[in-house]
Structures are given as structure tokens and as C-alpha cells.
């Protein structure tokens, strides 16, 4: 607990806080009564104020010691090398290719395993349960992708990443393209596999488009929400919140729908396709806005201690 300033606060609250602070240092009631006026007298210290001239003088004295962003010779050489190709398609592809090497093999394997689980759900579980599982599993890819994208934060390497020639925005876009591109690719593979099989496990919604929507909409929405939340919260917390929020909403929807007379008659608690498309678009919009704003918030990802 912080002690209250003995400034000219006469309110009951200030007295109470002061008493609490004194109790925290094991003062007896008699000592609290004796010492409270003493602490109040602290406010009578002949206070002087810092003038703007004082601040300017201090800043001027410190300026020569301030680390500058002037690049070293090695860094200049790297920049020149990048500058020659900067802006070209080849350079963008090269940046994305480098990001592929940043992601660990476990990300690729886990994502593929999640997709395989989706296939398994479709072929084995069947009926409406498979749609539920598709919608529950696909955002797991988003969770894995977003946490993998910001792996540098956990490893305390974010300063190094920010010091790279590509800007924070370019890095974010490159990683998002790689991670979501892989996830979308997996989703398309899944949709294709199910479509080729005939989609028997998805009653009434056997089209390739419908299967793809079941997979991609939750993925995009959770990725968008996770990225938006990561502007304020630690990345792992943001991704977990987004995924758990989606799961909770999904379970709630299915529970309500199962017991709803209107839907119960159809026996399949389905989310209308228009709603799925709207959710997907909302996810994409959130993704775009968050990516745009992320570079300005990168410093909150820097280590704190």
C-alpha cells in the first residue's frame, strides 16, 4: 500500500488512508494519533516548482548521452541491401519467406493436426455434431497462429524484430499472410476433401462454399478479435480470450437452439449462411483495422522488467 501524501487534504478519506498507512507499519492507535499531525506538517516543506527552463536545461545536459537511432555500419549495409529491392514483389515475397523460418515446426504440425481432427470429425462423428466440431476447431488455428506470430514477445526478442529493416507494419502483414494463408489453405483442403467425399456428414449443407464457410468464418473472426484485443492485452491472453469467447458463444447458441421449438422442429441448429458471411466479414474488418493500428502499439509488447 502506498502512503498518502501529507498534502493539504483534509477529507475523512485522506485521514483514513493515512491511518491505514501507519497501521501498515505496525503503529498503535496512540502512535497514529500522535504522528498524524506530524505527517501533515510535511506539507509545510518550502516547496519550489520546476520551471520549463529547468526542464530544458536538464534535457540539454542529457541529450549527448541519449542513445540515438543512428545506424551502425553493419545496419547501414543491411539497409542498403534491402533498399535496392524495397517495394518490389520479390522483396515482399522474400520478407514473407523469412517469416516462415521464424515460425517453429510445432506450429505447422499442430495446425495440420487440427485440420486432420476436422476431417476426422466430419468422417466419423457425422450429423450435426461435425459442424459444431468444425466451428469449434477452426478458431484453434487462429489461436495458434496469433500466438506464433508474436512469439518474439514471449522470447523477449521484440526489440530485435523492431530493429529489422522491414517496418513493424510490413512485418505484421508478412506474418499474417503466412500464418493465415497456411490456415486458409488448410481450410480449403478440408473443404475440398469433404466435398469430394460428398458431404454426407453435413446434412443440408453439402456445398464446398458451405463447408469452407464453416471452417473459415470462425477462424477469421477469432483471429480478428484476438488481434484487436492484443492492442490492449498481452497477446497470449488476447488470443485465449477470443477463442474461449467464441467457444462459449458457440456452446450457448447450440444449447439454446437445441431447446428452441422453432429450431428444434428442424432438428439442426444451423447458423444461417448470411450470418456466417457477416461474421467472416466482421473478422476480416477487425483484422485489417488491428493490423493498421498495431505498429503504434508495439511498445506495449516490449519487456517490462
Amino acid at each position, binding site marked *: 500500500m502506498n502512503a498518502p501524501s501529507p498534502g493539504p487534504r483534509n477529507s475523512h478519506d485522506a485521514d483514513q488512508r493515512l491511518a491505514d498507512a501507519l497501521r501498515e507499519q505496525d503503529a498503535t492507535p496512540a502512535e497514529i494519533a500522535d*504522528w498524524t499531525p506530524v505527517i501533515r506538517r510535511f506539507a509545510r516543506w518550502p516547496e519550489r516548482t520546476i520551471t520549463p527552463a529547468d526542464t530544458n536545461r536538464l534535457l540539454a545536459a542529457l541529450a549527448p548521452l541519449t542513445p540515438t537511432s543512428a545506424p551502425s555500419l553493419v545496419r547501414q549495409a543491411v539497409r542498403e541491401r534491402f533498399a535496392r529491392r524495397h517495394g518490389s514483389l520479390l522483396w515482399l515475397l522474400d520478407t514473407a519467406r523469412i517469416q516462415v523460418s521464424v515460425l517453429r515446426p510445432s506450429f505447422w504440425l499442430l495446425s495440420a493436426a487440427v485440420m486432420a481432427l476436422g476431417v476426422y470429425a466430419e468422417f466419423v462423428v457425422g450429423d450435426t455434431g461435425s459442424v459444431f466440431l468444425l466451428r469449434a476447431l477452426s478458431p484453434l488455428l487462429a489461436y495458434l497462429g496469433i500466438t506464433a506470430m508474436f512469439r518474439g514477445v514471449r522470447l523477449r526478442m521484440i526489440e530485435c524484430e523492431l530493429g529489422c529493416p522491414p517496418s513493424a507494419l510490413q512485418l505484421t502483414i508478412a506474418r499474417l499472410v503466412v500464418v493465415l494463408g497456411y490456415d486458409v489453405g488448410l481450410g480449403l483442403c478440408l473443404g475440398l476433401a469433404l466435398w469430394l467425399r460428398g458431404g454426407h456428414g453435413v446434412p443440408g449443407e453439402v456445398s464446398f462454399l458451405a463447408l469452407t464457410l464453416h471452417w473459415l468464418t470462425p477462424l477469421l473472426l477469432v483471429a480478428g478479435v484476438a488481434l484487436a484485443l492484443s492492442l490492449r492485452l498481452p497477446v497470449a491472453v488476447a488470443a485465449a480470450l477470443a477463442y474461449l469467447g467464441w467457444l462459449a458463444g458457440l456452446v450457448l447458441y447450440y444449447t439454446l437452439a437445441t431447446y428452441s421449438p422453432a429450431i428444434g422442429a428442424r432438428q439442426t441448429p444451423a447458423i444461417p449462411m448470411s450470418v456466417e458471411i457477416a461474421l467472416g466479414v466482421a473478422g476480416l474488418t477487425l483484422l485489417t483495422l488491428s493490423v493498421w493500428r498495431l505498429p503504434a502499439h508495439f511498445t506495449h509488447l516490449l519487456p517490462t522488467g
Partner: protein
Amino acid sequence: MSMERLSDEQVLAALLVGERDALAELVARYQGPLTGYLDRLVGGDWALAQDLVQETFMRVLRQHADRGARPFKPWLYAIATNLARDHFKSAAVRRATRWDDHFDERLVDDAAGPEDQALAVERGADIVCALATLGAEYRATLALRFYNEMSLQEIAETLDVPIGTVKSRLSVGLRRLRAAMIAAARIEQGAEER
């Protein structure tokens, strides 16, 4: 880039990677509280307090690697406290004065009459004099607690002592401060009666 919402540690990290606004932000956050703290520590010598603040920030920039995993605020105040102590140590060598004597030299004026003394009380010189009767470690602890509003844990980290020692210094310091104030008030009363 907006710095206001960043923690001290994040602002320092930004400063060290060359972010221009970070130094101004750290100075805006700590120049006032740090000068006030050092002012209390060195007995109301405002110019000396400002010099020590400048030296403190210079140490922050030069020796940031020494901070390790310590939180920024206690580390900053620890540097300031050590600099104040070092200043008086070196001054003691040069001028044969002790840290605690510095107060007496500046504040105690036996030749002052009752009216001058009353004016000094009004201006707050009485609290400066009363604080001067305490040892440096008590002044630092009281100032950190009741001027800088630090928690017991932060004070312990700043002064590198156990929390029990912080509590003990606060209790002894407040007891002595109260006694000094009562004594000063009696002297003042006696002067008025004469």
C-alpha cells in the same frame, strides 16, 4: 508514438532503442518528484538537489545495464539516494562537513529574533529544521514514504534493506520528528513569552 500509457520500464526500453520522446517522458514523470525528494534529503538546497537530479539521470543513461530485473522506480531513487550520500562523503573530505551538518549550516541561525523565527515557521523552515535533527537514513525513509508515496516494498527495494527495517525507521523517524517539533514549539513559545 504515445508514451503516456507506457510503464516506466517500457519508456526506458524505448529510450534505449533511440525513441526521441522517451527521454522527455521520463523527465516529465520524475524530474519533479525526484528533485523534491533530494531537496528533503539535502536540507532544502534546491540548486544542489537539481544538480543531483541531473547526475541521477546521467547514471540512468550510462548504467542502464546494471538495472537487471529491478523495477525502474526503486532503481532510480536508489541511484539518487546514493549520489546524495556520495556528495556529502566527498564534501566531508574536502570541507570536513558531515551530511547531517549541512542542514545546521544552512538553517540554524542563533542570531534570529522571535519575529524572524515566527516567519521561518510560517515559511516551513520549522519542518526543515526538525527533519535536520534526524539521521540521513530516517530522512530518506520518511521522504520516500510520505512525500513520494512509495509502498513499504518499494522503499525496501530502493534503500536495499528489509521491510522490517523500513517499518522501524519510519517509527523511529516519526517519533524523533515529533519530539523535535515539540521542542521547537517550546522554544518558540518561550521566545514569545520573553
